[in-house]
């Protein structure tokens, strides 16, 4: 009893401290955003000589404006992170982090916030998507850079760019129109499973198609960066083209390929709309990959409507957002670091 009371006290103090810090951040944020807009307007006016004809003064104001916009922008994204962190801390007053991450029932109406099935499905979906996408993308990139004639190569590149630009909601619609019936009527019966078609497998294939362009274009970039003399050396000692690719190109561009996979993982992990259109939306561990599930990002979409009615629900969803944010951030940071190393590798 005594202990419980004490814990409660500590928690209140902690919460109060958080609230004060938060209000501080809020104040900064509001003033920052308003000044950001204001400053960008000033920059715009300065760019077209409306404010003053005094050149030194214009230089001073212009430079400082650009500096402030840059600083505000960088600060802003840290504020965004802390805002989500702050919002998700409320739920930790009632549940421990391990409870949330590893208990397996997600039922907000009854105060059960177990994220395990959702995290599990997210990892499975992303994993299957990458297993499908990585070999296909790397082989296509190899064909485009090493085998295809120059003319074909020039024609294919815009198509890859277009594929990258297709909105995710259109991917979702197409998957719903083609993949869902296909899985329902052909693929699932073939494996002897009954399925509605909106399932983990469908979502994984959709995601695989969505990460093709990002992996392909990053791979092409890193294959192109390899000095041609390396390849020529290998070809001149009698290796076939594929042997050269296998022994020289893959090794020389390994960091580039790894970063492409990492960035592709980040993209697939956070993809929201297309996944939520085809995954079925049931936050339980599916019995097979043809069962419906729910990923972190699609959970946020489907839960938003009812969020305000249940206590702590909002905070639980913020926790989901935070996990999503941190995981994607980590993978992106890793990917970008490896990519930079890869870019530096062949610069002489």
């Amino acid at each position, binding site marked *: 009893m005594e202990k419980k009371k004490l814990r409660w006290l500590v928690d209140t103090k902690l919460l109060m401290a958080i609230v004060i810090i938060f209000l501080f951040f*809020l104040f900064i944020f509001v003033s920052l955003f308003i000044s950001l*807009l204001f400053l*960008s*307007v000033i920059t715009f006016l*300065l*760019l077209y000589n409306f404010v003053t004809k005094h*050149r030194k003064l*214009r*230089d001073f104001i*212009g*430079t400082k*404006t*650009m*500096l402030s*916009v*840059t600083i505000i*922008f*960088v600060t802003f994204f840290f504020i*965004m992170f802390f*805002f*989500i962190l702050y919002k998700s801390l409320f739920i930790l007053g009632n549940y421990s982090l391990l409870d949330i991450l590893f208990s397996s029932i997600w039922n907000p109406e009854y105060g059960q916030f177990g994220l395990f099935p959702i995290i599990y499905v997210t990892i499975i979906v992303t994993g299957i998507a990458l297993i499908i996408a990585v*070999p*296909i*993308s790397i*082989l*296509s990139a*190899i*064909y485009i850079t090493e*085998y295809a004639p120059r003319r074909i190569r020039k024609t*294919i590149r815009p*198509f890859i760019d*277009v*594929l990258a630009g*297709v*909105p995710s*909601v*259109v991917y979702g*619609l*197409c998957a*719903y129109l*083609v993949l869902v019936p296909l899985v329902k009527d052909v693929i699932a019966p073939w494996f002897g499973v009954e399925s509605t078609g909106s399932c983990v497998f469908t979502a994984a294939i959709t995601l695989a198609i969505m990460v*093709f362009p990002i992996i*392909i274009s990053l791979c092409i970039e890193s294959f192109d960066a390899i000095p041609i003399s390396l390849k020529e050396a290998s070809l001149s000692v009698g290796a*076939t*083209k594929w*042997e050269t690719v296998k022994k020289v190109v893959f090794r020389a561009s390994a960091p580039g390929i790894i970063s492409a996979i990492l960035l592709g993982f*980040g993209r697939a*992990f*956070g993809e*929201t*709309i297309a996944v939520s259109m085809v995954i079925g939306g049931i936050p339980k561990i599916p019995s097979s990959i043809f069962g419906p599930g729910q990923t972190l*990002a699609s959970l*946020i*979409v489907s839960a938003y409507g009812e969020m305000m009615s249940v206590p702590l629900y909002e905070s639980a969803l*913020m926790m989901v957002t935070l996990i999503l*944010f941190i995981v*994607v*951030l980590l993978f*992106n940071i890793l990917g970008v670091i490896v*990519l930079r190393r890869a870019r530096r590798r062949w610069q002489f």
Partner: protein
Amino acid sequence: MAILNRRIIEENIFKILMLASLAVVLGSLVIIVGLVVINGVPALSIEMLTQTPSGKYYLGQGGGGILNAILGSLFLALPATAIAYLIGLAIALYLQRDFLNPWASGFIRFTLDVLWGIPSIIYGVFCFMFMIMLGMRASLLVGIIALTLLEIPIITRYIDEAISMVPSGLKESAYSLGSTKFETATKVIRRQAFPGILAGVLLGLGRGIGDAASILFTAGSPSDIPTSIFDPTAALPTIIFKFYTSSITVVRQRAYAAAFILLMIVLAISIISRLLTRRFRKHVIK
């Protein structure tokens, strides 16, 4: 001889695999475009393009089209791109060595690269929570803010790349004629890098107009055209997401029509970007 054969067979097997995977990639693009066209074109009509929905259209009663979503998408994406361009231009110009030391600009570039891949739902959630805290309702304004946040890293990084291609001799000659840093940056470098900047801005526009996750909760989905910046507004991606599962054919057709229009806008933006970039490249000093 046997070894040679094995090597050649391996080569051929992998060549076939490569062609097959390329066929999968290009085939999925063809299927996507084909599906959207096949389903979208029959759903199109003059009424669909020029009228706002009327009556209980979501029950299949009442007619009208999706003009509110088409205009809504433009009202959301165009201002967002304009603001993101201004902010992005300021940041990208400031990232040059003349203004900022390489360590700091390296850090900012790193932040931008990382933010590029952040899922748009996070911007959406953030803006939504903020909107609720300030006691606002879903509106055009919040939608624009969410899209701006989404587009800033993309546009900034593109402008930055374009600027880094500008030859330093050009900059030096501007300095030697006595121009200030700010004048050099805005009058010489910005103009020289214009084709790249344009490509970046159009890419940002294409990304912004097609994004659903960030505006789903922040912009709402009413059936009329917003009259002020505080009104909620529908958008093409929202319409698709709302209606694609509807059991009523007439309602589902709205989603197909919206998908068709959206895809055409995105394709048009990418083609225009290519043409304009080529056209403006003529004026660049080599």
